[in-house]
């Protein structure tokens, strides 16, 4: 009999706790929706590509807002810097000079 009463008490207590938790959860949900700003839906911009899991965006694409004249100037400076690097390699060819890192902002 004592065991039965103990089990009954524990069950009633558990039910109470569950009811309180449910009430708290539903309250916070309804009040939260009134305060929080709506999260804009972000659309995927990258096109679907076959055989490609990770699409690397080249720096040129990132710099799309650069005026075209400035972009052409960047390309010219890049070509000049690469020619200078190539001239250094041709004058004294080593693997280190061939693969020396460029400081050209066009590709960095």
């Amino acid at each position, binding site marked *: 009999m004592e065991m039965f009463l103990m089990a009954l008490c524990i069950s009633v207590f558990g039910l109470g706790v569950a009811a309180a938790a449910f009430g708290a959860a539903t309250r916070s949900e309804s009040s939260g929706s009134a305060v929080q700003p709506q999260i804009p839906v972000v659309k995927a911009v990258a096109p679907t590509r076959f055989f490609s899991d*990770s699409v*690397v965006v*080249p720096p040129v694409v990132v710099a*799309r807002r650069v005026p*075209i004249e400035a*972009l*052409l100037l960047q*390309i*010219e400076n890049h*070509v*000049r810097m*690469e*020619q200078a*690097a*190539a*001239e250094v*390699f*041709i004058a004294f060819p080593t693997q280190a000079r*061939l*693969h020396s890192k*460029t400081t050209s902002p066009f*590709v960095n």
Partner: protein
Amino acid sequence: MNHELLNGLSSAEAERVLGLGTRLIVPSGTSLFQLGDSADRLFLTERGRIRLTLPIQVRGREEDVFVEERSPGQTVGWSALIPPYRFTLTATASLHEAEVIALPREALREYLAANPAAGYRIALNLAVVIGHRLQLFQTMWLREMQRTVEMRSV
């Protein structure tokens, strides 16, 4: 003026070769030749700078992109001596007007055939010019390939 194409020739020989040509003034921004044009003349730069460009697509527009610049003494348009005799770049005078000596292919070939010693020197000089361009762009191409490989390996 020492022209790279005439290195090793006596001054008299060099004068004779230059005498085959015509002096041209190229105003700033004016093209000397366009990509795809028939290449019947070779040019020796006397004054100013000649920009060599190639068209590429930039944001859907065709733009001439800088490839190389030739200074006084340097040779422009060696496609005139190499089949199929079509220019593979566009050449334009840079910020200031340029002056070049235009050597007609046929006149030059006739002179070189009649003067084998001078022809030998000029052929060697031309090989140096073409070889340097090849080495330069081979190196630049490899460096770009290396960057592409590194980008794709990330």
